[in-house]
């Protein structure tokens, strides 16, 4: 007789082992390691919730403190690997295999652990790609998650940073896995139910609230004149030109400059209501002046941002909010929105090559991908038209206009030189060398060149849609690469001919006056200005307060 309920039987035995440490679903923080040792088995696939913002840090530390002879060879499948406790799992031999998306601050530590052979790397994913695999071949047996509050039945309130939680719980619980939640506070009643209690097996009140980092705050005081010039180019040469209404911004000072130029420069071009109305975006504080000036119709968020909660609460016409009034974010839905329902992605990168492939991976640092490759790619499953999408599609081909498919606008916004005069334009991406050293089958590429439609630097805009040959693309890229060695090796005649065709447009070709590329053009020049714009509702974290 075949056995069809093995996973459920296994689940029951794990629950029984865990209940020795719990009272109903609730257990005490001091018993966390013991409970994890009882419930988890060697070789398990474990998702230790590590989102962009919200971290199951108490559970991570407790798991890292487990007895390595009892728990070993775990396969960690989680989007963000950003805490040092996450790395400890590998140095202590508790975990051996890793599939992830983003590592940010641990990028250098992951590189060292990979070279030392302590991590067997499955793949570096994009967010929705990893989530997709949760439902196919990387389904977690154990999910360790974080929430703001929970009741004794396991009903959870995630607060504004819902992020990955619904996706993780869906994949784990409905495939007979075990879900354990840490909450900042055990309550009689939660403000809203983000996760229904019957999907949660155990709950612990953590000794300290989970860790959240302000990842999406850029201080306007740090924005340079060069970044303002690039923002002007993007607004006039791309947003206005294509009539971009639905969009996503990557994080960086360049995109922050665009956000702060909408109510000033954008207003002077008469673009209000015509561009930048619908967003898939984290709650960037630098978008506050545009929201307050009436530019923005609505925003769906991947996660929240520290200090933005009261502002969001007071602007429910703009943001998605729950019955309790606070933001409801959802990474899987917002990534999907960015992929299918946005006409433009604009973001920066560390390196870009002569075919417009870009990467942030170097042999010393592996920050992972996060969501940019989803936003920054043409969705081949898209079937709804928009003017921006169709215009880009028409530019890309000489095919019969009756049978043109549209194109997502994917814009790389980068200064020709990065920090310490390191050129952003390179002959070969550093990730190629990394792949060689690690013997990877696939070179890590953030955004593939064939998805990139425009490159914006302080030198101008290169429209790759209008390039017809690989040689034209290369010269268009060299043509905006400035004084990097890639830029200086341009074929000047060919670059001038590309400019006469509008493939390359300089600031002067767009009637942009360099005298306007000045910090006075920013709608807010400091964090304090942002607080003023918000009517005191935005409460920046301490590290951004200098008054």
């Amino acid at each position, binding site marked *: 007789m075949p056995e069809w309920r093995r996973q459920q039987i296994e689940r029951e035995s794990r629950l029984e082992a865990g209940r020795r440490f719990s009272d109903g679903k609730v257990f005490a923080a001091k018993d966390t390691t013991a409970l994890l040792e009882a419930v988890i088995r060697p070789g398990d696939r474990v998702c230790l919730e590590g989102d962009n913002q919200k971290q199951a840090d108490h559970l991570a530390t407790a798991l890292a403190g487990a007895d390595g002879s009892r728990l070993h060879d775990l396969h960690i499948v989680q989007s963000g690997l950003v805490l040092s406790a996450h790395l400890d799992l590998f140095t202590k031999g508790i975990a051996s295999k890793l599939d992830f998306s983003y590592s940010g601050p641990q990028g250098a530590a992951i590189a060292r652990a990979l070279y030392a052979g302590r991590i067997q790397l499955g793949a570096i994913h994009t967010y929705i790609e990893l989530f997709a695999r949760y439902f196919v071949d990387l389904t977690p047996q154990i999910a360790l998650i974080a929430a703001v509050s929970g009741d004794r039945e396991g009903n959870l309130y995630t607060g504004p940073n819902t992020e990955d939680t619904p996706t993780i719980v869906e994949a784990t619980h409905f495939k007979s896995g075990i879900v354990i939640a840490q909450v900042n506070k055990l309550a009689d009643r939660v403000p809203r139910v983000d996760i229904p209690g019957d999907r949660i097996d155990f709950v612990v009140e953590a000794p300290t609230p989970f860790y959240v980092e302000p990842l999406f705050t850029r201080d306007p005081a740090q924005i*340079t*004149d*060069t970044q303002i*010039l690039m923002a002007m180019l993007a607004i006039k040469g791309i947003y206005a030109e294509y009539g971009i209404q639905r969009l996503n911004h990557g994080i960086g000072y360049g995109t922050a400059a665009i956000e702060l130029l909408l109510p000033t420069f954008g207003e002077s071009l008469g673009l209000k209501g015509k561009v930048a109305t619908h967003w898939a975006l984290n709650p960037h504080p630098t978008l506050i002046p545009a929201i307050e000036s009436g530019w923005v119709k609505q925003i769906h968020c991947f996660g929240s941002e520290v200090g933005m909660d009261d502002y969001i609460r007071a602007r429910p016409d703009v943001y998605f909010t729950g019955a309790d009034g606070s933001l409801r974010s959802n990474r899987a839905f917002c990534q999907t929105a960015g992929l299918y329902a946005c006409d433009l992605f604009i973001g920066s990168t560390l390196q870009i090559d002569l075919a417009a492939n870009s990467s942030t991976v170097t042999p010393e640092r592996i920050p992972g991908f996060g969501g940019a490759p989803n936003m920054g790619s043409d969705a081949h499953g898209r079937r709804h038209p928009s003017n921006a999408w169709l215009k880009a599609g028409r530019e890309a081909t000489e095919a019969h206009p009756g049978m043109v498919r549209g194109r997502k606008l994917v814009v790389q916004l980068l*200064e*020709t*030189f990065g920090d310490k*005069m390191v050129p952003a334009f390179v002959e070969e991406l550093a990730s190629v060398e990394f792949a060689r050293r690690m013997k990877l089958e696939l070179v890590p590429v953030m955004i593939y060149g064939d998805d990139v439609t425009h490159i914006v*630097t*302080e*030198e101008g805009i290169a429209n790759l849609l209008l390039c017809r040959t690989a040689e034209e693309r290369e010269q268009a890229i060299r043509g905006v690469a*400035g*004084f990097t060695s890639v830029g*200086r090796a341009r074929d000047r005649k060919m670059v001038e001919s590309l400019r006469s065709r509008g493939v390359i447009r*300089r*600031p*002067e070709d767009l009637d942009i*006056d*360099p*005298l306007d*590329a000045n910090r006075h053009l920013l709608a807010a020049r400091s964090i304090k200005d942002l607080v003023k714009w918000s009517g005191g509702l935005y409460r920046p974290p301490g590290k951004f307060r200098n008054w």
Partner: protein
Amino acid sequence: METLEIRRTAAGRAPGTKGHAITGVVASGNLEVLLERVLSDTQCEVTVKTSVEGFGDVWRAVIDDFVERHSPGGLRISINDGGARPDTVSLRLAQGVRLMEVDG
């Protein structure tokens, strides 16, 4: 400290009538540019005093590009550089030429 003298021939006279203009500040990663209308119509002279040595080639490439794009004939340009990146230098030079053109 390194000093570079770069002389170029411009296609034409820089627009406007202003005698001199100054833009930028001497600060780390920034530069100060003084422009004076003292030369004949197609001459352009640039003096660079920079705190970062060994980038003569890049400076010459930046100046060549500037002369080609903005035609700054008649200008003597003095630069005090605090280690600015080429994009900042280009932007300040472009701003300087515009300042020579506008009133006030």
